[in-house]
């Protein structure tokens, strides 16, 4: 049976674990977006080598399991390069490198779906390039990419559970610790599952609203 008093006394630890989960996901998502912007620029570069690098990077990320990517960064990187990373840093970097490949694709698709007439109208008005980028294209891009970016973030929150294997004490690892200390796997993992669900469910409700009314402009 599910023991309620157990649940309540250990709740603070779970909440801390959830905070770490959210923190690494957010950090991974942010850094991933920055890397994705770089990938997008390289992919549109005139230099063939730059485009090749992006293509290889993307297919490598898509073609290997996230768990293996994490293990490579945490265990293999020190052996290969001498750079040693703490579990937390290695974990965030893995999530960033992984999500960057997918976010870059979202950005590319979002940019592609802006009608060419928008660029033409901006050119015909002689708008300077930075105004075109910031005032004409970016707001439309943001509106286009809210749904795929929200789904990428959701994937990242769930994927961050894998960081438990390199001993980052996020929500899943917290549940494992609690189980080992109390021998109550049912309560430990059900609590973790419930918290994951509450976080992501709240998030999805929030983004649905954002989709319906982005920046006050009707579609």
């Amino acid at each position: 049976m599910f023991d309620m008093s157990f649940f309540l006394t250990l709740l603070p630890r779970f909440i801390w674990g959830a905070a770490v989960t959210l923190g690494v996901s957010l950090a991974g998502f942010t850094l991933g977006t920055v890397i994705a912007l770089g990938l997008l620029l390289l992919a549109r570069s005139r230099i063939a080598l730059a485009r090749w690098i992006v293509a290889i990077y993307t297919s490598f990320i898509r073609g290997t399991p996230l768990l293996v990517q994490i293990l490579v960064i945490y265990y293999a990187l020190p052996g290969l390069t001498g750079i040693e990373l703490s579990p937390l840093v290695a974990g965030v970097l893995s999530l960033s490198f992984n999500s960057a490949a997918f976010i870059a694709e979202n950005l590319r698709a979002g940019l592609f779906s802006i009608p060419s007439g928008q660029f033409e109208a901006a050119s015909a008005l002689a708008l300077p390039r930075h105004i075109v980028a910031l005032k004409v294209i970016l707001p439309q891009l943001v509106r286009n990419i809210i749904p795929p970016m929200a789904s990428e973030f959701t994937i990242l929150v769930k994927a961050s559970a894998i960081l438990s294997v390199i001993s980052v004490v996020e929500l899943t690892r917290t549940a494992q610790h609690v189980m080992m200390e109390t021998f109550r796997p049912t309560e430990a993992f059900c609590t973790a599952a419930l918290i994951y669900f509450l976080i992501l469910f709240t998030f999805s409700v929030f983004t649905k609203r954002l989709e319906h009314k982005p920046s006050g402009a009707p579609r």
Partner: protein
Amino acid sequence: MTNLDEFPREDEAGTGIKPPAAVEIIGLNKWYGAYHALHDIDLRVVTGERIVICGPSGSGKSTLIRCINRLERHDQGSISVGGLELTDDPKRVQATRREIGMVFQNFNLFPHMTILENCVVAPMSVKKIARAQAEELARSFLARVRIPEQAKKYPGQLSGGQQQRAAIARALCMSPRIMLFDEPTSALDPEIIKEVLDTMIALANDGMTMLCVTHEMGFARQIADRVIFMDHGRIVETAAPANFFANPQQVRTRQFLNQILR
């Protein structure tokens, strides 16, 4: 930076010296790969002149006017706007675009901005006009195209005809010397076309230099100084509207007119 205030008008001082044309196109050729889109085009448009360009789809009429503000790059020949030749120099291109307003078939208003925002973004960022003055200017042009009450709405909330008139107001806010219209009524329902044409007629009566790609022959009859018929990337026939419709010289022109005038 080019001094735009020195853009010459047609014989303003009455000196008798031939001033540069509003638009002068000489020996223009353009290819898309192997496809010859524009073939030896020569066209001189003087200030205040109203030109209507018609022709079957794929005849190069849109490509021609899109070359004038460099939405398309030409391969051969020269295009001069107000005596200034279009080159690859981005500053030259921007200077030319500042003199030319363009109205598109699909309006191309910025959907995330209100109509007023659409109208002030270029005057504020290109001409560095203060917001209050830019808005005043925008409201006066919105009144002129008879949609003053739509200023705070978004393009998606307007009818097609209202959107197109807003797009005309947006172009006018830059005080262009030349207006290009690329099939401005082709995306509109028949009952809405008139309100856009009326706006264009009013503009023509104010003396605006206009190049209009359109199949609205009633409009051409009413305001055009010259009608140009294009086919397969060439100018086939140029005539005043009365002659163009009553007495077309070329077989191809007659065939075309028979198809669109019933």
